[in-house]
C-alpha cells in the first residue's frame, strides 16, 4: 500500500511542479487562475494519499469537505478577475 501511495504522490507532485512552472510563464491572468485551481485539486489529492499512507480514518471526510468547498476558491478568483463585478 505504501509503494502505491508513494507513486501517486510523486505523480501529483510532478503535476504541481508543472503547474507552478506554467503559472510563472503564463502571460494572462485567466490562465493563472485556472492553473491555481489545478494546483488546489492536486494538493487535495496529495492530502488524501497522505491520509491513506498513515492509515487515517478521516480520509473520506477530508476529500468530501475539500470537494464541497472547492468552488469557493474558483468563485473568488473569478470575482478577482472581473474586479468585483458579476
Amino acid at each position, binding site marked *: *500500500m505504501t509503494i502505491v501511495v508513494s507513486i501517486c504522490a510523486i*505523480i501529483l507532485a510532478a503535476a*504541481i511542479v508543472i*503547474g507552478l512552472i506554467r503559472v510563472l510563464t503564463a502571460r494572462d491572468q*485567466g490562465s493563472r487562475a*485556472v492553473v491555481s485551481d489545478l494546483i488546489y485539486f492536486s494538493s487535495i489529492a496529495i492530502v488524501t494519499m497522505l491520509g491513506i499512507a498513515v492509515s487515517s480514518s478521516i480520509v473520506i471526510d477530508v476529500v*468530501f469537505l475539500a470537494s464541497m468547498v472547492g468552488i469557493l476558491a*474558483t468563485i473568488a478568483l*473569478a470575482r478577482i*478577475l472581473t474586479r468585483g463585478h458579476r
Partner: protein
Amino acid sequence: MNETLATVLVGIFGITGSLLLLASALAMFRVRDALSRINVFSPATGLGMPLIVAAAYVFDLHSAGFSWSSLLMAVVAVLCLIIVSSVASNTLARSTVLSGQPVYRKTNPNRLAHPPAGVVDVDPDVDVDPDVDEG
C-alpha cells in the same frame, strides 16, 4: 476485503486519477489561451478527482469496514466534484471573457470575435452623423 485486493484497487484508481491530473497539467502547455485551459482542466475534476475519491473509499472500506455514512460521503463528494466544479468552471470562463483576456488568434470558428447574426453592433468610438436617425 483482503490486503492484496485493496492495494490493487487503490493502485488502479489512485494512479489513474493522478495520471489524469498530470495529463491535465501537461495540457496547460499545449493550449494557448485561458478559455482552452479551462476546457482541458475538466478531465482533472470530472474524472481524475472522482477516481481519487474512489481510491479513498476503497481504503476506507478495507480499513474500517462498510458503513452507510462513508458511502454517502463518497457519493456526495463525487457528485459535488462533477456538478459544482462544472458550475465553477462556467463562472470562471464567464469572468475570463468579461475581463477581456485574449483569445488565441488562430481559434476557428471564433464566435466571440463577431456579434451573432441579426444583432446591430454599434461602435461607440465612431462619430455618427447627427442628422441620421440611428434607429
